[in-house]
């Protein structure tokens, strides 16, 4: 569905060349649900805008829905749906008119466009607002209208740029409901950008982590977390027996370090003692399976655990692992 080869975009800002996207290679198969995850300014929106022909690549090629983005931009546009960061509805127009107009832009006739518009308004709970002017809609209603606009021509490939930014949790869940239903019913290929790690984590089958214009990881969220971050394990032992397990825990944590092949937060064992109890914190791959074994080993070493806490990793941990920075503070270098 999507294939890019060294796709690159540079901007000239005040005589300084800024490489926003540095030669990314992306392949997306039909039916996939892919999230571009990265901090603000990482280049994910720029990549998306090149794929949707809103920006011309500086170099490299991209084929979207079988069509080259540079050679036949209009051909790409006819085959994709795009829901941008902003609100698509013109403020002084009525909701229904904008939807029908959108259908007409895609070459639908008025009758089909009207029928499709009403169908979408109903399924997005906007039917009562059809005749309202866009400016009178609430933020959540506008975002749902954006989804309706993007789906008017039933695209087989849908791009969403930061679809849920600024939405409250209920509206976010609602939006995702619609996206998931669309996918289940029509097998639509979906590519989205997000800087919400939990969203990428829960919703996407595949996460492409982008930072400083480059792809730094590309896998399922589950595998990224297992391979790059590991579970966070905290165990407490009596202070007098702590010495006996220090080496054991160090070796257990080394698994994460080994996978990464670089020193990172995961390879360390933190410890602090309080009231005669030492608390060890470490990253552990396949924590659920290995923790019981580790407990047994600790028992055998004469230092039984007094408590244990196992926390599955988040994509934020993955990002931290990959870049040494938090996703939230990501834009800072």
């Amino acid at each position: 569905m999507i294939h890019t080869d060294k796709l690159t975009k540079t901007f000239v800002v005040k005589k300084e060349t800024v490489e926003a996207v540095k030669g990314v290679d992306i392949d997306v198969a039909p039916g996939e649900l892919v999230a571009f995850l990265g901090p603000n300014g990482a280049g994910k929106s720029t990549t998306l805008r090149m794929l949707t022909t809103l920006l011309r690549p500086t170099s490299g090629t991209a084929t979207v829905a079988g069509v080259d983005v540079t050679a036949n931009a209009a051909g790409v546009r006819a085959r994709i749906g795009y829901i941008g960061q902003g609100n698509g509805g013109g403020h002084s127009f009525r909701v229904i008119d904008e939807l029908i107009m959108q259908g007409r832009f895609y070459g639908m006739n008025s009758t089909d466009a009207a029928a499709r518009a009403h169908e979408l308004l109903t399924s997005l709970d906007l039917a009562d607002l059809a005749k309202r002017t866009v400016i009178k809609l609430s933020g959540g209603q506008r975002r749902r209208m954006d989804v309706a606009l993007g789906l008017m021509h039933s695209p087989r490939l849908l791009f969403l740029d930061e679809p849920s930014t600024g939405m409250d949790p209920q509206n976010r869940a609602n939006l995702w409901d619609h996206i998931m239903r669309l996918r289940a019913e029509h097998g639509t290929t979906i590519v989205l950008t997000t800087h919400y790690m939990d969203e990428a984590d829960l919703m996407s089958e595949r996460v492409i982590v982008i930072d400083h214009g480059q792809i730094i990881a590309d896998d399922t969220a589950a595998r990224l977390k297992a391979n790059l971050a590991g579970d966070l394990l905290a165990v407490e032992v009596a202070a007098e027996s702590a010495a006996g397990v220090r080496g054991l825990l160090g070796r257990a944590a080394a698994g994460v370090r080994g996978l990464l092949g670089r020193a990172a937060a995961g390879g360390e064992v933190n410890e602090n003692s309080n009231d005669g109890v030492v608390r060890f914190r470490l990253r552990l791959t396949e924590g659920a399976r290995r923790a019981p074994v580790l407990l047994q080993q600790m028992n055998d070493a004469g230092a039984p655990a007094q408590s244990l806490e196992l926390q599955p990793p988040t994509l934020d941990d993955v990002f931290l692992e990959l870049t040494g920075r938090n996703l939230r503070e990501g834009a800072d270098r």
Partner: protein
Amino acid sequence: MLLPLRDPFSLVFSLLQPLVFLGLFGPLLGAAVGAPAFGGQSTLQWFLPGVVVMIALFGTSMIGSNLQYELMTGSYERILATPLSRSSLMIGRALKEWAPLVVQGLLIALVCIPFGFVFYPLHVLFGLVILGIFGIGLGALSYALALVSQNKEWIFWGVQQTLLFPLMILSGIMLPIEAGPDWMKTASLFNPLSYLVNAERELFAGSVGTDTLLGLLAASVTAAVGLVAGVRAINRNIN
């Protein structure tokens, strides 16, 4: 184009400014300049065509600010992502400036009848058609300016406001340019608006002649230049 119909108040409201000029400036003009300067016509008969052009000048030249607003909200980007061709988008937007101008011009002409304006329906209609053509060009230029000054609204307003008044004064809308010094008369020859105003004056006075032809020509050239500039701007807009 349906928008003004759904919201007719905006159309009527936009006629307030020309009415103020007609009601408050018109009488002063007659008193200060005196009827002989108007070629024997009543002040209203002379001033109204200029005010009609003023509607286009003030209203249509600002239309690009709507586009700047759409650039900010995202509705323009949504349309750019559809297969609609960029040129059609620009030409369509510009062409829709025609109808409101004709309606506004007609309304204000009708309002003036009770105050002594002699109404020549066919001539006025023809004059408004020419005005509409000019409006298409001016609208397209305004859109082009909006695209060129994307993310820098002050440039849009700076250019629009800077050009507005010199163009208006040098076209003789407010006061007869014949009363001015020679350099102003020469400058007005290079102002397409002068020809438009002269054409409207001739038509509103109930005759058709060289001025009408020149005005039609000036309006057509403005429309052509505006559309070319607009289409170029919109096609360059993607970078």
